[in-house]
């Protein structure tokens, strides 16, 4: 039987979502020891007796991680628990040095919050509220690398290597309540939720929120129930969803897979599934039918977390503007058309454009540079725009140079190339490359006279009132002045010279 189409799925079934997002905090040190947390260091170089679980070693909570978690909770409209504890989640796995994970169980530090997201629907922009059940702290595990075997999985591998650099990196887990009522928009709502979370977290500066590096990871729970039914279906949990686009694809894919099973009268298995980036499908992981007993109990090595009310309020006062409100404000203040706004959000340039505007640049000019020429170069080089060697300060300077007439748009593009090539600030590039607008009328007149003498026939046409012929002469003058002249001024002087000034 062929897979049902998405339209066939939503005609019959109503999806229910549940999203668990893991965020790696960007604290300088790990959750329970002072080891560094930098991404990409040589294996096992960022470890110590504590995160390797050597006999006798003890954890001590990183206060910054608690602060970041409270900030996240506040930004997600959560209540902050005056008393919460860490618990041990006991299970054996080689990449978990203690063979238990320090997490929070029945006493999360933040609970009962929500996030509103807006998506484009058939009826226009529509808001969905995603309720957040809890935000809690835990530590990350190490990484296993399975060598040999075809799949890179533990089965069939010749041997495995363990890297404990990631073990003990602070993680925050954000768990939604079940999300019903999104209907056919379920995949988009999920994507919008994760995007909104990412923007909130970025605004809080508590995480790098790089999905491709795993600092933001989403597990998507999906189940289907017949439209109109109150009975929840069996869910699957899809892990390894490492981009916003994948969130959407994974949920859509799971909805179709569930519907196929249910349409055939089969049962959906409650299990963990792994998203395959290449195919967009999921494959079965370990079955969750036999619930594991993690034997949670309060970690006796740690003391309860009891944030003072005054501290919580101090943190609340430092919360940045909510991303949705900020987008709205920017759109209005800068008078950005819908399409352009969407383009900026899509290209992830809102922060840098705003930074450029705050340095005095005209919003439209700033936006045009970042979305246009600079985005093009970033795409060509296949790197993130923020990783280019050009800063909001450079672009603000560039805009100012063009506005004052010291550069033309065309020359400014050369300057952008120079800045990105590492030649210095715009002024430095201008100086070093000898770029300047020729606005010495004497020099221009000399060039005009020279060109008119060389192309006397064309010059006569213009003198006779045939203005379109002026284009060729202007082009020749620009060539003569190596492109450094202001074309408008050249035109003005040329027409004057040929008696056509108005």
């Amino acid at each position, binding site marked *: 039987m062929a897979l049902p189409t998405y339209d066939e799925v939503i005609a019959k079934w109503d999806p229910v979502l549940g999203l668990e997002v893991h965020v790696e905090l960007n604290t300088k040190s790990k959750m329970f020891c002072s080891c560094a947390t930098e991404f990409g260091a040589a294996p096992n170089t960022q470890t110590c007796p504590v995160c390797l679980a050597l006999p006798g070693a003890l954890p001590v909570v990183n206060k910054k991680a608690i602060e970041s978690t409270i900030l996240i909770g506040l930004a997600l409209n959560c209540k902050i628990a005056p008393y919460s504890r860490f618990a041990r989640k*006991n299970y054996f796995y080689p990449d978990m040095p203690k*063979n238990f994970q320090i997490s929070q169980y029945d006493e999360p530090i933040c609970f009962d919050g929500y996030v509103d997201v807006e998506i484009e629907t058939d009826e226009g922009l529509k808001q969905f509220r995603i309720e957040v059940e809890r935000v809690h702290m835990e530590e990350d595990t190490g990484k296993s690398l399975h060598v040999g075997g075809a799949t890179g999985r533990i089965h069939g591998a010749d041997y495995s290597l363990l890297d404990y650099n990631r073990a003990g990196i602070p993680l925050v887990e954000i768990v939604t309540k079940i999300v019903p009522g999104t209907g056919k928009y379920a995949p988009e709502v999920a994507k919008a939720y994760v995007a909104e979370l990412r923007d909130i977290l970025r605004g809080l500066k508590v995480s790098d929120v790089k999905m491709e590096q795993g600092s933001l990871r989403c597990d998507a729970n999906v189940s289907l129930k017949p439209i109109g039914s109150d009975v929840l279906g069996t869910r699957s949990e899809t892990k390894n969803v490492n981009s916003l686009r994948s969130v959407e694809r994974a949920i859509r894919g799971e909805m179709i897979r569930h519907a196929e099973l249910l349409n055939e009268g089969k049962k959906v298995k409650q299990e963990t599934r792994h998203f395959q980036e290449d195919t967009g499908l999921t494959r079965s992981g370990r079955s969750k039918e036999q619930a594991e*007993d993690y034997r949670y109990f309060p970690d006796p090595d740690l003391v309860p977390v009891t944030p003072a009310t005054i501290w919580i309020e101090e943190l609340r006062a430092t919360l940045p503007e909510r991303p949705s409100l900020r987008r709205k404000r920017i759109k209005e203040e800068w008078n950005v058309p819908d399409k352009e706004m969407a383009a900026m959000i899509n290209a992830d340039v809102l922060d840098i454009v705003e930074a450029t505007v705050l340095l005095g640049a005209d919003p439209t000019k700033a936006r045009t540079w970042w979305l246009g020429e600079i985005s093009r170069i970033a795409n060509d080089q296949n790197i993130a725009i923020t990783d280019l060697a050009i800063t909001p300060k450079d672009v603000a300077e560039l805009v100012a140079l063009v506005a004052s007439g010291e550069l033309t748009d065309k020359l400014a593009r050369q300057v952008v190339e120079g800045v990105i090539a590492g030649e210095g600030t715009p002024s430095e590039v201008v100086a070093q490359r000898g770029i300047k607008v020729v606005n010495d009328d004497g020099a221009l007149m000399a060039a005009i006279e020279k060109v008119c003498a060389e192309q006397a026939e064309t010059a006569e046409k213009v003198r006779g009132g045939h203005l379109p012929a002026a284009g060729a002469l202007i082009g020749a003058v620009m060539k003569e002045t190596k492109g450094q002249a202001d074309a408008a001024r050249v035109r003005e002087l040329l027409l004057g010279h040929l008696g056509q000034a108005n």
Partner: protein
Amino acid sequence: MIHKSAAEMAKALTNGETSSVELTQLHLDRIAAVDGDVKAFLHVDTQGALDQARSVDERRKSGEKLSPLAGIPLALKDVLAQKDVPTTAGSKILQGWLPPYDSTVVSKLKDAGIVIMGKTNMDEFAMGSSTENSGYGPTFNPWDLTRTPGGSSGGSAAAVSSFEAPLAIGSDTGGSIRQPAALTGIVGVRPTYGAVSRFGLIAYSSSLDQAGPFGRTVLDTALLHEAMAGHDPKDATSINAPVPAVVHAAKSGDVKGMKIGVIKQLQGEGYQKGVQARFDESLQVLASLGAEIVEVDCPSFEYALAAYYLIAPSECSSNLARFDAMRYGLRVGDKDGASAEAVMSATRDAGFGREVKRRIILGTYALSSGYYDAYYGSAQKIRTLIIEDYAKAFAKADVLVSPTAPTTAYKIGEKVDDPMAMYLGDVATIPVNLAGICGMSLPAGLADEDNLPVGFQIMAPAMQDQRLYQAGAALEAALLTKWGAPILSQAPALKGA
């Protein structure tokens, strides 16, 4: 010289009558002579000890001001990590492991110039009361080599009572310092929970474990207590407060006007006749010194043993999960493409002893879903009730007292097949651990029926450790006058000595 107290040795060092190298060598010689019979040590670090002693001597010569115990040798329970010195916690699963770091206690000892001679035997992972559960064979009681020295810090207690070391460090999770001190005729203190850092102390039961000092006198014990205690940012449960003035209290021992509470539940039935007799006698001595003796009621203590044997195994089932052959220690069955899980399982089967396995299984069960509330949950409630009992008792008395252990030292092998009988030996010491308070055991004489040492236990509220020493020093002085010589002078001479 080796029969002197640590305080006297320290004086001899200050006066230049001896050197730390000489003192250390005398003790190393004593170990060589008698430890073949006593088996207090798992590892003797001869070179490391002499190097440390030499360094202290040089510092002293250069006129540096040294701490009170600088240059005095010490025996360290093998439960504490010492950099580059074999540390096994008495378990085969850690055979050959060399810690790359010092526990905080070891750092403090080194900073104080105390010479660490070696690591002492113990019940595996401190689980036991007789040192018979060591993966490396039992330690023998210097008073009678057919008997156990108690445990789990039996090696440390035996080392001090056999004059192999003037001082030792133990750890006390349910009585593991006080009970062996009682059974070998020396002084042992379990400080308030959180007073001594647990960083580097290989965990048995995190909420109950606490390292503490052994000595042959109350003052020696206080000097070591002061050297090892203090706040440590590396231990989240460490108390951030000044160390109680234990040395001052030990020097000014006085019980005049002190209210001493006798716990009704911790005497009488179940206590050996000679143990009860020495206890009663000590009470009379204290009364004659001006203390007011009152009786206090602690009804919840009846459940202390049961609560302990749920909480400690629960925590240990999780604490000991890290011994999995992946990063250090023993590795068994790593061949023919065995899975990580199979290697973990084979290693734990081969590396852990019976008692450790028993407690891991017990704890795993107690924490299981569906049983958690009935076992672990109930035990925590009892713990709260015991804390309340103590609070009420301390409202009536400055310190509380009881016999340390219900019996004197028993024969090796006598209780190994009867865990309940063994567990009952800790009935008087366990409540202190559950409440997180402090306790001391000091010699109260010999039981008439077997001529073996009896321990007198003193308990004080959290961070009031100085009260133990104040009362203990007064009792010690009065008993010494009564006996004419320290109790250890009555111990039979060891072969080879």
